[in-house]
């Protein structure tokens, strides 16, 4: 059975300037363990789609099932890595991760186990050296790592990431992408990631969901990426299949879904 299923999902926002039809007729199903990217021009509704799956907002109509159950609100089995990390500035790196660990494992793990689990997850993203630093004292890439550790530490069945590397420089981004690939390879969790970076999408994903432009955006095309794992970015640079996929996404984004202002 599909792990995540969206059927005929519509999202209409009631705003001060009237109703805004953001998403239209979204149909999507994701297998367990799959890594799926959502790509599209900015403002098309990618974050909205992710927020729907996270349960932070509810759809205007349509059905959303996760593990066979209707999504009626947020839940710890769907952890989110936010676009701007959203670490709490008054807590240390350790405390930020521990907050989620205590919530999810408060009943099943004792104090020492929760402490070890927190440290383990921070080690997973190579942040064990900064446990007692506050978010203002670490770099943007480190904050994003901690955000990922916070989400992973909840052992979510479904990991949601909203442009997790958008604000980072190319080198930091590459190293975090590698970390995410490695972690996904090890934990085999289901991942839904929003991105606007074509290379990132092709490198990381099993499937790429390409969205049309808003308003009333929907899924335009779905691309299967059948590249063997583990993937190495340097080797893939000359790989014919990789470049073929890359070209397909580029074509979709820049020929079929040009930004309205560019098309004019």
């Amino acid at each position, binding site marked *: 059975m599909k792990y995540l299923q969206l059927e005929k999902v519509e999202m209409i926002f009631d705003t001060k300037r009237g109703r805004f039809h953001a998403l239209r007729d979204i149909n999507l199903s994701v297998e367990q363990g799959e890594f799926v990217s959502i790509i599209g021009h900015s403002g098309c509704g990618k974050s909205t789609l992710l927020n729907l799956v*996270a*349960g*932070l907002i509810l759809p205007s109509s349509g059905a959303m099932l996760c593990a066979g159950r209707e999504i009626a*609100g*947020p*839940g*710890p089995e*769907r*952890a*989110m890595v*936010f676009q*701007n990390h*959203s670490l*709490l*500035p*008054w*807590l240390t790196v350790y405390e930020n991760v521990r*907050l*989620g660990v205590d*919530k*999810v494992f408060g009943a099943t793990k004792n104090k020492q186990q929760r402490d070890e689990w927190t440290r383990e997850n921070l080690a997973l993203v190579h942040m064990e050296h900064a446990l007692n630093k*506050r978010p*203002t004292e670490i770099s943007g890439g480190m904050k994003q790592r901690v955000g990922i550790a916070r989400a992973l530490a*909840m052992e979510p069945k479904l990991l949601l990431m909203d442009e997790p590397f958008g604000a980072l420089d190319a080198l930091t981004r590459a190293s975090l992408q590698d970390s995410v690939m490695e972690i996904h390879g090890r934990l085999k969790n289901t991942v839904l990631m929003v991105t606007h970076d074509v290379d990132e999408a092709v490198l990381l994903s099993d499937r790429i969901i390409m969205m049309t432009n808003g308003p009333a955006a929907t899924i335009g095309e779905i691309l299967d990426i059948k590249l063997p794992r583990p993937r190495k970015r340097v080797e893939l640079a000359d790989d014919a299949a990789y470049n073929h996929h890359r070209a397909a996404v580029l074509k979709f984004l820049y020929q079929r879904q040009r930004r309205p202002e560019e098309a004019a």
Partner: protein
Amino acid sequence: MTVLAMKKTLDSPQQTEPKSEKAVVIIPPVIAVPPPAASRFADTGRWVVRILVPPVLGLVLFVLLWALISKGSEGLPGPHETWLSAVELFSDPFYVNGPNDQGIGWNILHSLERVGLGFGMAALIGIPLGFMIGRFAFFNGMTAPIISLLRPVSPLAWLPIGLLVFKEAQPAAVWVIFISSIWPIIINTAVGVTKVPQDYMNVARVLNLSEWKIFTKILFPAVLPYTLTGVRLGLGVAWLVIVAAEMLTGGVGIGFWVWYEWNNLNVAHIIIAIFVVGIIGLLLEQLLLLMARRFNYE
């Protein structure tokens, strides 16, 4: 305009302080070669001119003006006379000479005690109330009309109610402090709660935190800077109001002392009281500013 300018000169060294601390950490020692002596002197000189000269000049002019006015007026003592009187007054601040005649120290302490009581209760009640109003729209709707109606009422208008209810002057004075300092605390806290970034609340929702955890881990730390601003404003109001309230209620306290010395026609003491009230108000404000900086995480 001049007050604003003075405030700027007062504020600027504080604001640059944390920045310069960070800068010291970042700059490697190799680069931190001391500048040539001449330019360092020039820098210090410029600093003195920019930071020190304007307030000192202002104070000197103020004292001169005061001296000039007191020369021309009958009852108003000049700076020198007032100074001598103050030296005498503060040489024995804690004498007790009957209920109405006690040392300046006692008067200050009693006023502070009343403010502490009234203001402390205002904080104790106002902060939780502010959180509830900010967090629950229903509660906000319920309290909004009452607050907007009562907030603009002049503090002293509450005194008769206090006298009526408590049948005594002392709790009535505390009551006036309480009711006049609670509004900024409530309102700033409530506004702070609505200003908590949605991102943080989303974190709380994804983590599925309990209402108590949301309060201790997210709301309280996020709102604290706003609350402290409210507390600072509330304390300012309390200290403003205490003098007037004590004039009406009597008892040992700086306000009553002013009234008492007016009846004795000891104007020098009244001027001293004005300075004392001003200086203590300034100290209280600086204390709270210090606290606020400690809890600012941005």
